[in-house]
């Protein structure tokens, strides 16, 4: 119950202002198609440099939570999901809006998001300290395998091709080794002076997530979104409350599905929303109404994608393994303040950890309250031409990368990685495993070297890294995730081939 002691810290004037600003800004950014939660958080990191660690994380956490919920606004009013997590919301939400029930759909979506979100953060509050204590038992070999696990799980589950996903992870791990070696001081892969200090994580994150999006917007050429905002009519909030709690099956399936999926590294909000929608439909007595503007569809999808947010941070805060690309960006936000997640975070910086987690809890309520008011404005912002968005994101990326260390080298690295990632994505590679490799690379290498030294003095490298219950368990999970993804890919390919043959 440590978290209760730090509730007051969220309500200091600056912290609360940041929470409010992050929530409202996140709702508007989330509604803008093309601005993913990960990109929004990455672009916000430079604004946290001058803040204290807890305050910086409050801003990033609020933006993360509310961009996921804000995506529902454009999904409902424009039929364009603000983020992949809101795809399932479009199915019934937009139909409701077309039927003149846009306000009802928005109210249900924000209320369901808040319920799911609060449950997810409570799970984060109660699971994290327990797992953080358990993480104390981890030695260098376990941490090495855990870092490899983080890269392989995201590489295999988040990519359409297992080999390309793992290859992206390898590229990320290699990029992390560029610069001077920590122990010998040797130069590694420095083929340009801008790489002398290694690749700065924040500049890389901005480049990898923002620049491909900018180029994608350019690639669409001169065109309007063509989407019309559907006008909403007034709807009683009390009725929405009543309806939400009369749909307990959809709400609980969405919340539980989202929370469980959030705990699994690599499986994002998009999956959470779609799985919850599908499961609710299966268990519903009104199956036929799904897709025709049924409120259960909106409730299930939105409660799931927000319930996923809290649990997706559990592996990050306990084991230093970001479970999602956005969690990886948040890890970057922690590292720039010299704070390392894991048991150290709760033992030495409990104020930072608990203030951040508590702010996410309060943020869910604020998101719900303000979501209903800024929905109209957010939908208008979502209509801003993509050319304007692309130019804004490009300039923010350049300024953001430069402000990390006041170095043009970081801007060059950001641009090169971003342009390279755009083309890699077009060839089926994914940014998420690359980012995970880049972030977890130093953790993997430090523990590999440290473990190697211990092994040389004791049982030898093979025994040290490849035996012992926990090592074997982690290796088994790595192999299982690869095997599962290969099986899924082959199955999908078999079905695709069959469909192609039939066509």
């Amino acid at each position, binding site marked *: 119950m440590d978290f209760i002691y730090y509730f007051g810290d969220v309500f200091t004037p600056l912290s609360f202002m940041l929470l409010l600003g992050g929530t409202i800004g996140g709702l508007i950014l989330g509604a803008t198609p093309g601005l993913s939660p990960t990109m929004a958080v990455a672009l916000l990191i*430079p*604004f946290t440099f*001058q803040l204290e660690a807890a305050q910086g994380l409050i801003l990033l956490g609020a933006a993360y939570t509310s961009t996921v919920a804000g995506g529902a606004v454009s999904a409902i009013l424009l039929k364009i999901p603000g983020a992949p997590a809101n795809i399932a919301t479009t199915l019934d939400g937009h139909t409701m809006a077309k039927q003149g029930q846009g306000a009802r759909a928005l109210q249900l979506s924000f209320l369901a998001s808040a319920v799911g979100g609060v449950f997810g953060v409570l799970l984060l509050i109660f699971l994290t300290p327990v797992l953080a204590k358990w993480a104390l038992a981890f030695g260098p070999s376990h941490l090495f395998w855990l870092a490899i696990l983080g890269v392989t799980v995201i590489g295999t589950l988040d*990519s359409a*091709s297992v*080999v*390309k996903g*793992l*290859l992206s992870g*390898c*590229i990320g*791990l*290699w990029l992390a080794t560029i610069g001077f*070696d920590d*122990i*010998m001081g*040797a130069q*590694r*892969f420095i083929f340009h002076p801008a790489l002398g200090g290694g690749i700065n994580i924040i500049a890389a994150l901005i480049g990898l997530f923002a*620049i491909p999006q900018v*180029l994608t*917007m*350019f*690639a*669409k*050429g*001169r*065109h*309007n979104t063509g989407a019309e905002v559907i006008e909403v009519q007034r709807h009683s909030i009390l009725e929405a409350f009543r309806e939400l709690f009369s749909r307990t099956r959809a709400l609980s399936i969405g919340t539980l599905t989202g929370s469980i999926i959030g705990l699994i590294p690599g499986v994002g909000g998009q999956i959470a929303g779609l799985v919850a929608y599908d499961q609710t439909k299966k268990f519903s007595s009104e199956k036929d109404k799904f897709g025709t503007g049924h409120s259960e569809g909106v409730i299930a999808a939105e409660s799931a994608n927000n319930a996923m947010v809290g649990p997706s941070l559990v592996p990050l805060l306990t084991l230093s393994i970001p479970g999602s690309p956005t969690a990886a960006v948040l890890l970057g936000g922690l590292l720039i303040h010299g704070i390392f997640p894991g048991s150290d975070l709760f033992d030495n910086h409990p104020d930072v950890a608990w203030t951040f987690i508590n702010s996410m809890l309060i943020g869910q309520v604020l998101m719900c309250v303000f979501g209903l008011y800024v929905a109209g404005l957010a939908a208008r912002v979502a209509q801003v*031409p*993509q*050319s*304007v968005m*692309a*130019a*804004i994101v*490009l*300039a*923010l990326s*350049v*300024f953001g990368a*430069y*402000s990390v260390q*006041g170095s*043009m080298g970081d*801007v*060059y690295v950001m*641009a090169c990685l971003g342009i390279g990632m755009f*083309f*890699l*994505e*077009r*060839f*089926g*590679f994914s940014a998420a495993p690359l980012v995970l490799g880049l972030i977890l690379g130093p953790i*993997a*290498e430090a523990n*590999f*070297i440290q473990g190697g030294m211990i092994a040389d003095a004791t049982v030898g490298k093979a025994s040290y890294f490849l035996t012992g219950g926990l090592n074997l368990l982690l290796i088994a999970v790595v192999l299982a995730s690869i095997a599962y993804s290969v099986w899924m890919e082959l199955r999908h*390919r078999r079905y695709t081939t069959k469909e192609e043959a039939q066509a």
Partner: protein
Amino acid sequence: MNRSQHVFGSGLVFAVGLWVTWVSYTQQPAEAFLFPRLIASVFVVLAGWTFGKAVMGLSKVGNGVTRTMFLNMLPGLVITLIYVFWAAKSLGFYTATAIAFFILLSIYDPAPHDEAKSWMKRCIITGVFVTVMYGLFAMLLNVYTPKEILF
């Protein structure tokens, strides 16, 4: 998707993989390259596999870049490269940002090019945006950006 695009893309990744492996196994001190060697070995095998599949025409994932996409993107990409690698440092961050922003808006804005109103709107948006950026970065965050010949 065009097979040659897959071959080119995966070939480039394979070439990087070969270079990383060669550097990892030939550079000294060897102790500093222990971890890179481990990664490079996996990297080159996976990259070789991907390249081999592309050569045999078995690459299924990835839509590549169509001619229309590339032509649409080209002006924006060129402006981005000039902005990042030359203008920001040589002209000054805010001047370069204003120019790049205005050009990008002019190229990609769906509003008609023959209306004075559209041009006025673009000028106003650029002015407001650069002022906001100045307020955020120079005044709020105290980021000192290269001013060079202009601002």
